[in-house]
């Protein structure tokens, strides 16, 4: 797969979205990868909802999840990740995203940053918007599945 954009922009902010080869199997072994069962519309939908619900941290990064019935989330990544991150893109540039969460093992120890700061605010926002329950928030904070 080559990098390519979704034909639509997000409804709220008109953000463009880029599907990256890196996070669809074209990257290195350690790169997070979107789950193959997710369609491009599903992936864009996670991003669109994150923008719509303003699930962002102080740096402007967006975070998303995809409900799976009542009280659960779909797996977004091949390592059972249920949360995704969309790093804040530059002005006018398309955004991209990748599955995140469970354990903080996505970078060498010296580069790992505690996630509690953004996670607390983002997960509370997810509860406020009805995306997750309070119990799911606590479990996700611990790195547990929901």
């Amino acid at each position, binding site marked *: 797969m080559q990098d390519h954009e979704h034909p639509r922009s997000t409804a709220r902010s008109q953000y463009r979205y880029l599907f990256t080869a890196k996070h669809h199997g074209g990257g290195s072994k350690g790169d997070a990868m979107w789950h193959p069962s997710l369609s491009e519309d599903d992936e864009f939908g996670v991003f669109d909802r994150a923008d719509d619900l303003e699930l962002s941290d102080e740096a402007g990064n967006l975070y998303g999840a995809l409900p799976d019935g009542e009280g659960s989330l779909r797996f977004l990544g091949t390592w059972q990740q249920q949360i995704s991150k969309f790093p804040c893109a530059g002005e006018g540039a398309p955004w991209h995203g990748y599955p995140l969460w*469970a354990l903080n093992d996505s970078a060498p120890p010296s580069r*790992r940053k505690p996630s509690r700061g953004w996670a607390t605010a983002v997960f509370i926002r997810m509860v406020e918007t009805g995306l997750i329950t309070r119990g799911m928030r*606590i*479990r996700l904070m611990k790195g547990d599945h929901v």
Partner: protein
Amino acid sequence: MNRLPGNGDRSAPLFTRVQLPKGFEVCWAGPQPFRDGFCFGSDDGRLLFTDEKGAQLRLGAASDSGEAINGVAGVGTAMAVSTRQEVNLFPLLDNVGGHDFSVVIPHGAHGITTTPSGYFIAPLGRTGIMTVKPPLSPSSRATVYSDDGTDFSAYRVISLHSAADGEVMACAGRLGGIGAAKFSGGQQTQHMTTVTFKALDIVDLCALRSEADSLAVAALGRDGTLILFQDILHDRQPLRIRYDAVEGVAYRILSCRGDIFLLTSKALYLLAGLAGRFVAGEPVEGVTTPVFVVRAEGVDANLCGEEWLLVVTPDEVRKFDVRLMHDSTPQDLSQGEIRDWNPKNFPLEAERRHLQQRSTRVPAGAA
């Protein structure tokens, strides 16, 4: 319902609510590692120790990163606290939880437990399984057993013992199935046997006879499926059953006094006598299991010996009297949310593989 019609004591409460300090957002609850009493972890990385009546003994920070606590264990004179960011190790001084330095292993874990030979052991997801043995010093190192190229993601680990096989480590490996290996601390490689089930996401497991020399284990699928092994190391035909009435996403499986507790996102289920019947070789398939249901959104649960079950919900911690629940089933559980369930036995589509896990030494940091 939180009252159980018991043997002549119709007012015995089924559970009591644990009082916690204001601002302490509990996310984990379990036994005190070194004495009777309870231990509670908060979502900002603090630990609270109480006695069995709930009196507060000590409260303090326990996570270097301030992340939510997902496991606490103690062995010898050391305590370990896990979060998704790191594993924190503390040599103890005089008081419970007292220490003057900590050792931080820079790998996130899904929990932590101990082995009879005195090791801490933690599942690190795709990174593998970490072991470390006290005594601790600022230069302590951990050993991580890992295997490249498989779907095995160490999610929950338990330690067992049998006279024939010595110490055995068993692990829930998500889509990588269930792993088991003889454990001998300090070995360079570890040969783990895994059993995988097509598309079954294994999220937890527990010993069925924790007090005895036994390798009997129950594992739990995220969809509520139970896998029962008489011998996790050698059993080639585990029993796979599912109760259709189980609702929600399965989180925890625990066993005590011959009963099985199943915690989901919707309820706590007591499967009365199921473990006892299974390990005794009695039929499970086609036999009705009395089930007691307590509806609540579950978050986490842990047993404290054979007396208490602590269940974390979004609003509180509930302390269940396990002995009372056991002694009251199945005859006395005749009111309220009592069900008789018949399990469905699935044809087994298991694949057994052998993984060779290599060890690497991981330096710790002092904090």
